[in-house]
């Protein structure tokens, strides 16, 4: 219990760094960056200690801060330490820490260096808050904080209008999902009378028949944060931020928050709600994978691959939360690696992001080349890289769930292998496509070391035993214990899933190899025609949304305008003033100014009163 308070240290260190940077050291970029990096590294060390102590114990709560006590509603700010939050803590501080260090090199010389690190620390703090939250209200507060800090970071280069727009888009789209999330929290409070996770878990039956609705509303929050269809549109645009920020958003924080939240409260979802979640996840995975096939911007391809993998995770939440978290962890490693590798290439080519203007990087940037290859192999699910094991667990769980979902996941796996190797062959392999690509040189050590450090878990995370902790936490069957056993486990417990995923990789790879190994330009647009254009334009989702919003907005505006003009201005405002005016004009006729008129009226009045009194 006493050690659980170490979680407060983990949580507050980044906030402390952010506050100190903003208040005192804004003028000193180097000191600011050192502060921020130190804070996150210390957080990582503290998380490691916590992990060592509590990884197998029952969930513990840290010292609580009473915050809100209204009627039956008790909300304490307390930190929950259990296997799930500990693994996530390690990911956020570990991967996040490497991204902090990498940023030192990537952002060098930027005029907003100190501001960048302040926002980064704030972002880390918010994400740690979500991870350690012990109740829905606390989670929602940090959830919104993540939204705010992502706004700050995506719009970091706010002088570019596209970046400012992307930041707004991300924030507003997220708010849309958060609205549902908030409704869900209120509903759960109304039904169960508590927002504490542990109390909810003990009394899931109190939700009764409304469990499906409440669950889907909660899911809305994850749809926004984890960029699921139909709120997926913000994620690709979030590429406008600096590349390390993209890595942070896509790997360790933000989008992971949605999946983490779903896993955290997986017990509240009813069977029907889980079905909806599974299919939305599966559809997002397929949609994003198809779009990724025809993108040419290196960061956008990675963005759509993130979307696709997030779809996988959301699907997995419905079939087996342990496998969702497992994939979240491995994905955090290899996606951070891929993004940082892409950032390294982008910096070497002076902010060139088009993959058709790269190529031949093997000799020029060997570390980036090899680490990126490792990331690619991991995301495609080539054994024995980490992605294979986590993806296989999802496939195996999907087999038991429904055949349709299984086919969907395998299809996505084929597409993943195809577009990732397309990216790899075009951008890295072969010879330089343009002259500038020939002058590329390897990035500084502060950037390559994080790549190497991320490459190691990208290879090994599948056999480290993370899945054992998760399986124990979620009470799911665990398949293997020893290292050798773990390596072969996928083929042991579900041969169908393992061989399907392997075949998918081989198929996707050979397709990409035949099409792109020697291609000078993309041959697909000619062969696919309209389909390719639609894929390149992201199936026109942005345009459709713009049209829908404009149409509804316009109608609403017209109705509001009518109400304002006719009812409020016409009847209420003009009506009252008009009536007063008319009466005034009528009464004015009586005021002749002639004293005899007044006398006559006065006498007449007296006469009438007299008549009334006398002849009553």
């Amino acid at each position, binding site marked *: 219990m006493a050690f659980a308070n170490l979680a407060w240290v983990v949580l507050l260190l980044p906030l402390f760094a952010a506050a100190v940077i903003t208040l005192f050291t804004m003028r000193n970029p180097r000191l600011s960056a050192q502060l921020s990096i130190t804070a996150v590294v210390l957080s990582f060390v503290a998380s490691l200690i916590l992990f060592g102590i509590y990884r197998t114990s029952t969930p513990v709560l840290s010292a609580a801060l009473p915050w809100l006590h209204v009627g039956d509603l008790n909300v304490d700010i307390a930190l929950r330490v259990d296997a799930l939050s500990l693994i996530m803590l390690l990911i956020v501080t570990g991967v996040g820490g490497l991204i902090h260090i990498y940023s030192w090199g990537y952002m060098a010389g930027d005029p907003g260096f100190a501001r960048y690190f302040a926002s980064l620390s704030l972002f880390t703090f918010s994400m740690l808050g979500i991870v350690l939250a012990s109740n829905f209200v606390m989670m929602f507060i940090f959830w919104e904080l993540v939204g705010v800090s992502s706004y700050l970071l995506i719009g970091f280069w706010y002088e570019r209008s596209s970046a400012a727009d992307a930041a707004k888009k991300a924030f507003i789209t997220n708010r849309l999902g958060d609205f549902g999330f908030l409704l869900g929290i209120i509903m759960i409070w109304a039904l169960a009378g508590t927002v504490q996770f542990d109390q909810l878990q003990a009394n899931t039956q109190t939700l009764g028949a409304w469990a499906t609705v409440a669950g889907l509303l909660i899911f809305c929050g994850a749809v926004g944060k984890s960029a699921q269809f139909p709120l997926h549109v913000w994620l690709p645009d979030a590429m406008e931020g600096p590349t390390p920020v993209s890595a942070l958003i896509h790997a360790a924080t933000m989008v992971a928050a949605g999946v983490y939240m779903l896993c955290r409260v997986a017990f509240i979802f009813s069977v029907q709600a889980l079905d909806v979640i599974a299919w939305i996840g599966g559809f997002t995975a397929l949609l994003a994978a198809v779009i990724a096939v025809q993108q040419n911007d290196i960061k956008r391809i990675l963005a759509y691959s993130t979307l696709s993998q997030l779809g996988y995770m959301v699907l997995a939440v419905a079939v087996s939360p342990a496998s969702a978290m497992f994939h979240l962890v491995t994905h955090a490693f290899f996606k951070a690696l891929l993004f940082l590798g892409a950032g390294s290439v982008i910096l070497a080519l002076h902010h060139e992001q088009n993959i058709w203007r790269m190529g031949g990087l093997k000799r020029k940037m060997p570390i980036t080349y090899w680490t990126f290859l490792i990331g690619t192999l991991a995301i495609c699910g080539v054994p024995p890289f980490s992605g294979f094991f986590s993806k296989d667990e999802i496939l195996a769980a999907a087999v038991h769930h429904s055949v349709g979902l299984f086919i969907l996941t395998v299809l996505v796996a084929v597409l993943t292998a195809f577009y990732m190797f397309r990216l790899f062959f075009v951008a890295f392999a072969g010879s330089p496509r343009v002259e500038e690509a020939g002058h590329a040189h390897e990035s500084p050590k502060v950037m390559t070391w994080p790549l190497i450090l991320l490459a190691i878990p990208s290879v090994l995370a599948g056999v480290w035993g993370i899945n054992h902790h998760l399986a124990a936490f979620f009470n799911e069957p665990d398949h293997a214990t020893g290292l050798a056993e773990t390596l072969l486990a996928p083929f042991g417990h579900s041969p169908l899933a393992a061989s399907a995923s392997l075949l998918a990789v081989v198929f996707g790879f050979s397709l990409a190899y035949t099409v792109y190994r020697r291609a000078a330009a993309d041959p697909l647009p000619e062969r696919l025609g309209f389909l390719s254009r639609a894929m390149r334009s992201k199936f026109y989702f942005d345009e459709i949304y713009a049209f829908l919003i404009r149409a509804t907005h316009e109608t609403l505006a017209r109705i509001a305008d009518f109400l304002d003009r006719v009812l409020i201005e016409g009847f209420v405002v003009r009506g009252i003033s008009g009536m007063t005016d008319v009466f005034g004009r009528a009464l*004015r006729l009586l*005021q002749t*100014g*002639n*004293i*005899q008129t007044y*006398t006559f009226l006065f*006498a007449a009045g007296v006469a009438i009163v007299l008549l009334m009194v006398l002849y009553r």
Partner: protein
Amino acid sequence: MIRLEHYLIVSAVLFSLGLLGVIVRRNLLIIYMCLELMLNAANLALVAFSRFTNHIDGQVMVFFIITVAAAEVSVGLALIVALYRKRQSAHVEDLTLMKL
């Protein structure tokens, strides 16, 4: 035999004539005289009641009223003279400034 009713009828006739004069006449002086007529119609009624009910109070009161009326008339006439000097007219249709 003259009874109370006869006095009261004369008083009412005088009062009505005075009121009619106030309403229809144009000259301020005449209106003012008509006002006095109305006042004295009331005095007449008061004196008549006093006489027929054997209460001397009414007659005492009338003396007071006449005294106060004399003072009031002097003020009123002075105002009318001042007004005439200012406007060169004592007709009410020329004095309609109290309207919008």
